[in-house]
């Protein structure tokens, strides 16, 4: 990756702006977060792919900030074999359960926060 021209997060963000959740693959293994070198092998040969956006809740919590509605934070295992932090929406945060199937959805962001992916319940089981 020529860091004078593109960056791992910059490329990820370009995909997000198109509504795509992108990840990298090296030697058949999914890599996330995006990097310039694959973990362990150190290989710079990282191919970008777009996830189908389907995953399973691996771990979950609900944050109680003062004077705010309870906020879900979860770790999601995507079907392609990578894990990311996100939030499950459209459901009571306390009802987000480990093992629940979820589908990605892009939030538009604002002046301070670039667009970013969240998840909603997908129904069914893996």
């Amino acid at each position: 990756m020529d860091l004078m021209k593109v960056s791992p997060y910059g490329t990820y963000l370009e995909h997000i702006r198109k509504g795509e959740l992108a990840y990298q693959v090296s030697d058949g293994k999914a890599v996330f977060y995006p990097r310039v070198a694959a973990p362990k092998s150190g290989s710079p040969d990282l191919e970008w792919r777009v996830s189908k956006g389907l995953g399973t809740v691996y771990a979950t919590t609900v944050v109680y900030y003062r004077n705010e509605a309870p906020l879900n934070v979860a770790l999601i295992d995507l079907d392609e074999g990578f894990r990311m932090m996100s939030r499950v929406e459209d459901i009571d945060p306390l009802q987000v359960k480990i093992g629940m199937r979820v589908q990605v959805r892009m939030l538009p962001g604002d002046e301070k926060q670039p667009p970013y992916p969240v998840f909603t319940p997908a129904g069914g089981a893996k």
Partner: protein
Amino acid sequence: MSLKRGSIAVVGAAESDLGQVAPNTSPVDLMAQATLRALDDCGLKLSDIDGIFAAATQVRTAPMNLAEYFGIKPRYFDGTAIGGSSFMCHVAHAQAAIEHGLCEVALIAYGSTQRSVSRAAASPREFNPYESPYRPFMPSSAYAMAASRHMHQYGTTREQLAEVAVAARKWGLLNPKAWEKEPLTIEEVLKARMVSYPFTVRDCCLVVDGGGAILLTSAARAKTLKKKPVYVLGVGEALSHTHISSMPDLTVTAAAESGPKAFKMAGLKPSDVKMLSLYDAFTITPILFLEDLGYCPKGEGGRFVANGAIAPGGKLAVNTSGGGLSYCHPGMYGLLVMIEAIRQVRGECDKRQVKNCDVALAHGNGGVLSSQCTVLFGSAATV
């Protein structure tokens, strides 16, 4: 080449003032105060210190700041900063330095004024575009997710988590220096203000000011000083990840690597240890460490701590100071984790003293279960 069991010993150990210190006290003031007390503890002079090891979230170049403050030029210095376990790593690194003659008297110091200046000011979170947008309340939310996973996989309950806080409080009530002074029940833990589910504020460590210092030197020199030496029998260090989203399995920590390394070096097994000082940032952490250090099978930690098993009078003495949950947690608490273990081996713990405590284990945790370091301390009889 590997480190030698018992080649160095802790000769001086002390806390700084703890709790809420005077306005405008600096973290380095607290390091210096603790250092003077640790020097007094063993009879060494400031000029004897030729190795400085320090880390602090408010002082990015801690060994340098402390050297300037004291006006000394250490022959050796190390500012390894991997969170709350940094100081256990400093012990391992000091042992290597002393064994190789790079320094003779090593100071390890820490200080924080996080209660006075606020935790947000004392320890600002680094921005991560893959985590920060979701606004986890860090570090609590990371540990809460580990707890969620443990509950899901092994049936651990909120009541079992609360047992850890209640045991810590019972020990803390025996420690005059503990921040918390009132009894605590499981019911009170469960009903306290929710922070990051399943943790209430009582599942989370204290936010107070404080610091500490320990002095280590060669076994030969240690024998010439005031207090009974507390020997370093074994050390183990392990890194796992930095961000919780990169932790391979939220129910298994790298204590499963650092612990066996320390036991192997010491030639000891878990049942040889009389007292454990386990970094209790949150109620889930002692449960994970009891499993990963070999005190119960994986998944059994919640059931292991139930019914007061780690409280005074229980089957295993854990966090006799009251721990980060009831005694003191000034941000990076690892140095104080070791100081309690050192005092237990010395027999200085009065009402909370564990009988015949010839071997104590101090386990440090850093980041979000990210770095794990284990130190085994022993009395002269164990060397």
